C-alpha cells in the first residue's frame, strides 16, 4: 500500500513540476531570464577555463587598447584583460547579490512572521521600526551605513540587509494576516495544533510565493546597489574585478577607451535584466489572482 501511495505521489509531484516548467516555457521572458542566469552561473564556475588570462595580470605596455584578436574586449588602464575581469566579476556580483538577498529575506521573513502571527505589541514595535527605516530613501541610508562602516563589500551587504528587510517584513506580515484568517488555519487550530506547527506547516509555505518573487527581483536590485556603491567607491576596492568599481575606474578614460565604460555596464545590465525577467515571470506564474480571475468568467 505504501508503495502504491508513494508511487502515486511521485507521479503527482512530477506532474506538478512539469506544470511549473510548462508555465515557464509559456512565459518566454522568464525562460530567457533563467537561461541567462544559468549561463552566467556556468561562466562564473568555469571562469578559469573560459578566460585565457589572469584578471590581475598587468601589462602596462598594452594599456587601454581596444578590442583585438588577443584581447576580446581590450585592456584597461593597467593593461589587464577586460574580458577576464568581467568574467571573474560575475563571481563577485552573483555571490554578493545572492548572499545579500538571502540575508535580507531571512531577517524580513522572520520579523514579518512574528509581527503578523503574534500581533499586539510585537507587531506594533516591528511595524514602527519598518516605518522609520522606510522613511529614509534606501540608498541614502545604505550609503551612510556602508560609508561609516568603511568601504568593503561585506559592509555593503550588511547595510543592504539592514535597510532592505523592511520590504519583506511588510509583505510577509500582510500575507500572514490574511492566511491567519483562512479557515484551514482555524480548523487546524481547532484540531489542537500548536503555534509553531501552524506557522511552519500552514502559514509559512503559503506566504512564500510573493517572497520568492520579491527575492528574485531583489537579487537584481542588490546587484545594482552593490555596483552603484562600488561605483561611488564604497564597495569593492581595487584591484578586485568588481563591475561597478571597474566602471568608476574607466571614467577618466572615457574619451580614449570607451569600452571600459560600455562593457562593465552592459554586464551589470544583462545580469540584472535576467533576474528581473525571471522575477516578473515567476510573479505572473504564481499570482493566483490572475488565474482565479480568468476562472470567474465562467
Amino acid at each position: 500500500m505504501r508503495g502504491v501511495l508513494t508511487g502515486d505521489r511521485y507521479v503527482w509531484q512530477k506532474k506538478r513540476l512539469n506544470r511549473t516548467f510548462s508555465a515557464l516555457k509559456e512565459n518566454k521572458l522568464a525562460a530567457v531570464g533563467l537561461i541567462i542566469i544559468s549561463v552566467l552561473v556556468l561562466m562564473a564556475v568555469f571562469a578559469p577555463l573560459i578566460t585565457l588570462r589572469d584578471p590581475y595580470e598587468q601589462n602596462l605596455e598594452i594599456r587601454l587598447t581596444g578590442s583585438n584578436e588577443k584581447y576580446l574586449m581590450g585592456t584597461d588602464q593597467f593593461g589587464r584583460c577586460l574580458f577576464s575581469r568581467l568574467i571573474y566579476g560575475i563571481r563577485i556580483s552573483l555571490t554578493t547579490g545572492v548572499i545579500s538577498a538571502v540575508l535580507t529575506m531571512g531577517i524580513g521573513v522572520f520579523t514579518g512572521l512574528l509581527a503578523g502571527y503574534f500581533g499586539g505589541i510585537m507587531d506594533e514595535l516591528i511595524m514602527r521600526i519598518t516605518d522609520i527605516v522606510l522613511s529614509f530613501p534606501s540608498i541614502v541610508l545604505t550609503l551612510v551605513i556602508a560609508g561609516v562602516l568603511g568601504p568593503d563589500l561585506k559592509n555593503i551587504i550588511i547595510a543592504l540587509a539592514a535597510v532592505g528587510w523592511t520590504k519583506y517584513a511588510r509583505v510577509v506580515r500582510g500575507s500572514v494576516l490574511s492566511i491567519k484568517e483562512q479557515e484551514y488555519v482555524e480548523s487546524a487550530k481547532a484540531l489542537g495544533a500548536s503555534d509553531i506547527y501552524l506557522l511552519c506547516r500552514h502559514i509559512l509555505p503559503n506566504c512564500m510565493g510573493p517572497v520568492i518573487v520579491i527575492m528574485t527581483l531583489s537579487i537584481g536590485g542588490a546587484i545594482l546597489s552593490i555596483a552603484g556603491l562600488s561605483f561611488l567607491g564604497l564597495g569593492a576596492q581595487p584591484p578586485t574585478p568588481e563591475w561597478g568599481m571597474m566602471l568608476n575606474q574607466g571614467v577618466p578614460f572615457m574619451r580614449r577607451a570607451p569600452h571600459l565604460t560600455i562593457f562593465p555596464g552592459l554586464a551589470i545590465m544583462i545580469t540584472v535584466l535576467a533576474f528581473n525577467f525571471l522575477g516578473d515571470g515567476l510573479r505572473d506564474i504564481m499570482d493566483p489572482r490572475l488565474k482565479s480571475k480568468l476562472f470567474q468568467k465562467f
Partner: protein
Amino acid sequence: MGYLLNIENLETSFNTGDGVVKAVNGVDLVIEEGEIMGLVGETGCGKSVLGLSIMGLLPTNAEVKGTIAYKGLNLTGLPEKEIRKIRGKEIALIPQNPSTSLNPVLKIGFQVAEVFHLQQRLPWKKARQAAIEMLRSFDFPDPGKRAEEYPHQLSGGMKQRVLAAMGIAGEPSLLIADEPTKGLDALIRIQVVEILRQLVLRTSATMLLITHDLKVASCLCDKIAVMYAGEIIETGPTRDILSLPRHPYTRGLIASLPSNGLVPVRGLSPSLIELPAGCKFHPRCNQAAKDCAQKHPRLEIVDDGCKVRCLFNDQNCKPEKKLFHGSFQKEAG
C-alpha cells in the same frame, strides 16, 4: 406579441490554458415581449455566460457562434460600435454582484445620471435631476443626499437598487438580471425580488432573470428555462415546469430543495471542458438507459409550450405527487 429575442443554436466557448471551455452549447431560447423568462441552473452551467453573450460583453478569449436575434437584428456578428448602441438603451444588464459592480470612486448619483446623459441625451444637470428622481422611486430616503454618497456608504440592498435604477434609466426593452439574489439572506432576497417586481411593473419591460434559485424564479417568472452543462434541458411556463417537471434533472433540482426533503441528485456537474457524450445528464441520471450514453437528445416539444431534452420524455410524463410546495415538511431521513 412577437419575439423580442430569439436565440438560435448559440455556442460560446473560451480558449483557456487548460483547454476549450464550452460554456454554452447550442442554446435555443425565445423570449417574447413582456414576459419574464427565468434561466435556472447551477454554478458553471453557462447561464451567466449566456447573459453576457447577449450583451456582447465577453472577455476576448471567448468565441460566439449562432444567432442572437433581437428585434430581428442579429447581435452576434455586430461590430463593437453597433452593439454599443444596443447596450443600456435596448438591452440593459443588472450585474451579478452589487458590492463590486459599482465604481468605488464615483458618486452613485453620477453613476446613475451617466446613463440618462448617455442614453436619453439629457444635459448633465437634467440627468442628475432624473437620477435623483429615479432613486426616489426606488424608496431611497433623502435621494438628493444619497446621490452624493459613494458606493461603500450604502448597504447591499441599496447598492442593488442603484444597479436596478441604472438598469432601467435607459428605458430598455429587455433587462437581463444576472443572479440578483446570489449569496443573500432570505429577508434581503425577498427585498430584491420586490425590487425586480417593481421594475417589471413600472417599465413593462421584458426580463431575463438568470438565477440558481428555483424559488426566486418561481415567484417572479412567467416561463422558466432550465440549463445544464451549457444546454437548455427543459423550458416552459413556470407552473408547468414546477408542478410537472419532465426532465430528470429538473425533477432532481426540485426534490433537492430543503422544503421538499433535500433528496439529492447524485454526482457532480460535468466540467465544461470534457463534456460527456450523449445526453449530458446521463452519468447522474437515475433513469439512464443504454441509449442515453450515445444519443444526444434534442429539445422536443412535448406539450403546449413545454420543451424537454430527454430521450424518454414520453414515458416520464407520469405526474407524480405535487413536488413543489411552499411550506416546510419534515421528512424522516
